[in-house]
């Protein structure tokens, strides 16, 4: 049985929300691991983690688009 399109998109929104929260959990863990870093190093590290998180979000949104489009439009 095919899932209703609106239900599927709602589920992907919930999935994206969980991923956003997970990415911040990941950020916290990395910051804890580098707890002893100070000054310019920690500032650059935070920016770097921020960039990594943005890349993860972009890839995840791309995967969501691929999945929903394949499921709803190609079948």
């Amino acid at each position, binding site marked *: 049985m095919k899932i209703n*399109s609106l239900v599927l*998109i709602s589920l992907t929104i919930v999935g994206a929300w969980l991923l956003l929260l997970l990415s911040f959990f990941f950020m916290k863990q990395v910051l804890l691991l580098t707890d002893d870093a100070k000054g310019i190093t920690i*500032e650059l590290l935070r*920016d770097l983690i*921020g960039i990594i998180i943005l890349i993860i979000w972009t890839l995840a*949104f*791309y995967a969501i688009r691929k999945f929903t489009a394949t499921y709803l439009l190609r079948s």
Partner: protein
Amino acid sequence: MNWVSLIIEFITSFIITLLLTIYLEKFLRKRNMSVPDAHKKEKPMIPRPGGIALLVGTTIALAFVNNVYAIAFISSLFIAFFIGLVDDIKKFGGPEKPLLAILAALPIIFLKAYSSTPYLPYVGHVTIKILYPLLVLAGFPIYTNATNMIDIFNGLVTGTTAISILPLIVYDFIKQNYAGIYLGIAFEASLIAFYIRHKYPSKIFPGDSGSMLMGAGIVGLMIVSGAEVIGIIATLPLIFNGFFILSSIGGFKEHSELIRPLIILNDYRMIANKEPKAPITLARLIASQKPMSEKQLVYSILLLSLISVILSLITMVVYYL
């Protein structure tokens, strides 16, 4: 907090926007500034652009709020509005509009109406000195184009924006962030008033000037409120729609170059175009299984906005309070 001044601000913004919108409907129609509503059988001519009513209503309501946040917010709205107005009159090419939309971020940057220590779930306040101003610069083109791209059906962009900023206003009230409260209330009242005339069946269209102003309003409020993550979650359908379109067509392109994502049937219901090269939009995905009317599609996307708002409120309760 002065509740009387907040109520006066709400009523001022609401009434000015509503009256000006009704006036603009007649004014624009008289001057033949109307476009056909493509999703209706009779193809009625609808006046546009009506977005100036939002700008005037919000600005007058905020006239007595004398702080740097209000000046930065209103300046951003003005810049986004005028970029959209030029697009309404003389269409921009593919990447020109998003590049120009960066200008709308400048008042926030130069007046320092932001804090580079956003609050993140799990992490708490974190200083992101280099990346944050860059994100502010990127946020305006992202959101002004996201609202512009979702402005395809009657009332959709206004409804989505009005729903999406609700969690930001709630957050400002909880955190007693007065600057955010006053900006949010003025903007929300103006959006509700405009929605009354823009909702299905539309009496007026906001135009690119109106839709870009709405995008600037969302991102401006997110920054001033310091509720970036809450705002991102509340606007996930907007982000999805914009990202899906851009990633499926490979960047910014003119409308005329694109294949229509929806096919309009004889009874004026719409169904997804199965052509693989057609842009992937939320409306196309929703109408992929059965034909849907414009009204059904609008309410489906508004429902997605409501789900996102609930998720952002859950995030607020769990991680922010």
